[in-house]
């Protein structure tokens, strides 16, 4: 079971941030730890730099929309430790028109991943050096991966006719 293997990470996390482990879930041997939004940067920094853990790689960072639940968004961080060959999933809950803090200064990989979350979910990241849309063009309205965005697009029956 991964939770046994991961126990060092979790124990250290609980020691260092006793109030921050809000929820811990195991499903199919994968551990998910929910932490408060305000602490994510400090927690990531700790997991990255602690000599026993060394989560040096940010494998993935993505958003999930649980509309109409409140707070509606989750930002999911998947960390990987080369030293221990372990993955750890962290989660923060983000409400509508709230922002999250960027982890770009820890892992450069977060640069484009956070831009993508900003582009497709509309979650801004504080202290991000270059927060622009990445897949869609500048000036696009709306955030397609939100659940209240229609799958065929908002302008499906309104063909765009350029003015000549």
């Amino acid at each position, binding site marked *: 079971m991964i939770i046994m293997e991961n126990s060092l990470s979790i124990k250290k996390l609980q020691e260092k941030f006793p109030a921050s482990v809000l929820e811990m879930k195991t*499903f*199919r041997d*994968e551990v*998910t730890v929910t932490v408060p939004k305000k602490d994510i940067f400090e927690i990531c920094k700790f997991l990255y730099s602690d000599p026993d853990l060394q989560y*040096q*790689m*940010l*494998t*993935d960072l*993505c958003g*999930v*929309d*649980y509309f109409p639940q409140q707070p509606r968004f989750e930002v*999911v961080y*998947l960390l990987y430790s*080369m030293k221990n*060959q372990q*993955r750890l*999933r962290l989660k923060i809950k983000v409400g509508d028109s709230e922002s999250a803090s960027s982890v770009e200064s820890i*892992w*450069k*990989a977060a*640069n*484009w*991943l956070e831009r993508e979350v900003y582009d*497709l979910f509309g979650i801004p990241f504080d202290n991000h050096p270059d927060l622009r*849309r*990445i*897949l*869609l*063009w500048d000036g696009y309205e709306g955030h*397609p*991966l939100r659940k209240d*965005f229609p*799958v065929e697009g908002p302008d499906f029956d309104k063909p765009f006719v350029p003015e000549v």
Partner: protein
Amino acid sequence: MTINMGPQHPATHGVLRLVLELDGEVIVKTTPHIGYLHRGVEKLAESKTYHQVIPLTDRLDYTNAMGNNLGYVLAVEKLLGIGVPKRAQYLRVLMAELQRIAAHLIWLGTHALDIGAMTLLFYNFREREEILKIFEEVSGGRLTPTYMRIGGVSKDLPDGITDKIKDFVRAFPDHIKEYETLLTKNVIWLKRTKGVGIISKEDAINWGMTGPSLRGSGVKYDVRKAFPYSSYEEFDFEIPIGSVGDVYDRYIVRLREMEWSNAIVEQALERLPKGPVIANDPRITLPPKDDVTKDIAALIRQFKIASEGFQPPKGEVYVGVEASKGELGYYLVSDGSNKPLRMRIRPPSFLNLSALPKMIEGSLIADVISAIGSIDIVLGEIDR
């Protein structure tokens, strides 16, 4: 001076636009612009049943369709908690490794073409054609096979195909030697690739690079070894790594990887177990095609699964596989309905490309071409 490269440029391997800020011929800053091929695959998947998503995955990295299928079906199987028959696991490995060879062949041909070695492309496409013919016989499709199914694969190998695969496996090491005589000690090739586009171990990890691009920098990380899936732990293979982290190292790593893939294909054929190719779970897997035309119960089962799908338990899983470009991950969130609440694809090329500005900072404009070729990007996967 600012130069715009792409989106329509033969050396960008698709529709990638780079805005290069130059000082003379030296690159000061690079700003990549992506998204020209964005089709909203992640959004589309949210409105389809789990089976209907498989064809979408073919079209992510269109040179590595089998590998994309494999990652997705493994994620759904993990979500459901079902097992896969041993023969199906071996067939998946067999196809994924053949596909890896085909993908690396495209990379080698186009990469060499960008740098000016045109001959190689024709050799590479000759061998790739053999693999595509094998795929066509096995699955019916060449580029988009959609061969994998949840719980197994769509059909067993047709008669006589094993001999064709064996012929390919036997001939391929000689072909690699052929490529090497053209490139490995070629002075022009060495001058264009040695010491170009260097990225250090630490940087490569920090930028989230994976696959041969990361291993070229000397990091021994391969998902097939770190988190073995689909019986990879039963195969003997090594992970080739580079030392400097330049374009040449990445080239050597991919060449050696093709040899090991060839060895894995050989092992998979030799040890191919007998048995069914798809798990028999009436609520989840499709019935055998023959039964559908003869047996009313099988027909009903086929209809129910194709139209309604199945309902996995609430939960979330992540499965990473070693695709030809790097770690391809699928993060599935289920809310208990027959459609995924969220399907996140972790594209390896996306993160490899994000490290490109770092890689070519301070180098010459001609080196941009070799650096792009060496990280082996496919825009279908980056833009999704």
